[in-house]
């Protein structure tokens, strides 16, 4: 399980009931079939249908032989960003990139690597997450290059926008997921521990903890479980779960956040972690949160 800490970023807006993500429903309220999802992605008249279909195929990890070719063609629908044009095509492309990561097929790698250099920051973000989920070692160098300019470059705020110059969280997370722990990678990540935004610090600590297993990198994450903002505590929960850092059991149970998210974090401790506390202790802690 690759625990993405922003599971809803690319989910159709009608269903962003975070942290309740209801079983996928169409606008009419009926679950759709794989055939129906493929049909919606194949047509190109209604982009909102394509948008939903691409998300659905990823969520369901569709293994249909048409899935990868259709998602790749949806990824190619992107257009140069111009005011008032191409936004919908790019939204479909972003969901397609995300879905390609979830479906888990190496055929998507070359186009995802190309998307990592796209002008559309949202598409770079989705491609980075997908390459992280696929564990693509060829992505390590381009990911590091995107981050190499550090806090003053990649990590700087854009004027008049809440966004940073690069989708740093996704890039950092992907490096952690891929798991190449050489010094070039570590040196690229370390500066982001000092980023002014707690979510970036959390992503950097998560990646370092995943890559090295050094307890010292768990400290920033445990500290963020006490952060005054719920959004930050949620991110720290997802990050500790993604790493599977079992010593975090008690702080996870204590933090002020929804049980749904604590359960996801503890699932991560069980599935990705080893050692103490034991599996039975972790399962009992999960039972108490049901």
């Amino acid at each position: 399980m690759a625990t993405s800490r922003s599971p809803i970023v690319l989910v159709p807006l009608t269903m962003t009931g975070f942290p309740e993500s209801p079983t996928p429903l169409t606008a009419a309220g009926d679950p759709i079939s794989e055939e129906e999802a493929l049909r919606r992605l194949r047509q190109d008249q209604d982009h909102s249908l394509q948008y939903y279909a691409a998300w659905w195929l990823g969520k369901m990890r569709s293994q249909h032989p048409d899935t990868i070719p259709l998602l790749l063609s949806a990824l190619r629908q992107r257009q140069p960003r111009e005011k008032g044009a191409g936004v919908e095509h790019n939204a479909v492309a972003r969901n397609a990139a995300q879905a390609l990561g979830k479906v888990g097929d190496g055929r998507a790698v070359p186009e995802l690597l190309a998307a990592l250099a796209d002008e559309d920051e949202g598409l770079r973000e989705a491609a980075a997450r997908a390459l992280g989920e696929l564990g693509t070692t060829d992505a390590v160098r381009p990911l590091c290059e995107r981050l190499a300019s550090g806090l003053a470059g990649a990590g700087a705020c854009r004027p008049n926008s809440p966004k940073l110059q690069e989708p740093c969280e996704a890039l950092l997370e992907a490096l952690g997921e891929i798991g190449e722990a050489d010094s070039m990678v570590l040196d690229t990540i370390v500066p982001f521990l000092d980023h002014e935004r707690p979510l970036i610090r959390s992503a950097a600590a998560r990646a370092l903890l995943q890559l090295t297993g050094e307890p010292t990198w768990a400290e920033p994450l445990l500290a963020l479980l006490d952060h005054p903002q719920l959004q930050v505590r949620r991110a720290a929960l997802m990050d500790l779960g993604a790493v599977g850092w079992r010593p975090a059991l008690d702080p996870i149970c204590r933090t002020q956040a929804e049980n749904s998210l604590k359960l996801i974090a503890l699932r991560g401790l069980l599935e990705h972690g080893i050692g103490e506390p034991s599996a039975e202790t972790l399962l009992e802690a999960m039972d108490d949160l049901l």
Partner: protein
Amino acid sequence: MTCFERSPLLPRDTIQARFAALIDAVERADSASQLLQATRTLAQTLSDLRQDSPAEPPPVDALACLVRILGFNNPGAAVAAVEGLIACGPDAVAVLLGGLDDRNYGAKAWAVRALAGIGDVRGLAILEQALADDVGPSVRRAAAIGMGTLRVSHLAPEHRQTVRQRSLSALQGASKDSEWVVRYAVAAALEKLCMELQARERICDEALSTLNILADIEREDVPVVRLRARLALNRLLSPRA
């Protein structure tokens, strides 16, 4: 923390006057944090009353106030209200069932959690419906675990059997839920359901066969669900101490 000195011997009208003040504080709260604080105080005072004077029925006005809070769209206050209602146990069930509003999804979801936590069989039909149909995984999850912890010891044996059979059927259906956390809760609930049974009964055999499916890598994709089902099987099949 209570806002008055605890005493099991308080006269009833004093208790009522104090709850009236606490309810008033909830009604007059004009910010989310005030509502949260007032709800916590009211819920805690009800829990304390229950602990100190178990024979004293909790004031219906206060229970009804907690049930109304479930519909206020303030998650922190709703959590506190659910805890207060669960602390009042079976005494809260009639008020909860009477206050159910199908048009307010959020309120109903919290009410299901309270009913699941209380474990009173009068909530069974609501839990069945929630487990089968609710759109929120956290509501289905709570309903599932509630099915495993319904209190049946005071029921006549025949009635007890019927309740257990209905719980089992609902849990078997939910073992195919699309969300892992619901299947996880089903595994935990099946363990609890079987623990209650004295000897190997038919219901227990059926529960074990559902647990075997949830523990099977060919039929269950999510490792943590298999781990939970495996733990349940180990506990149920090992000789009891």
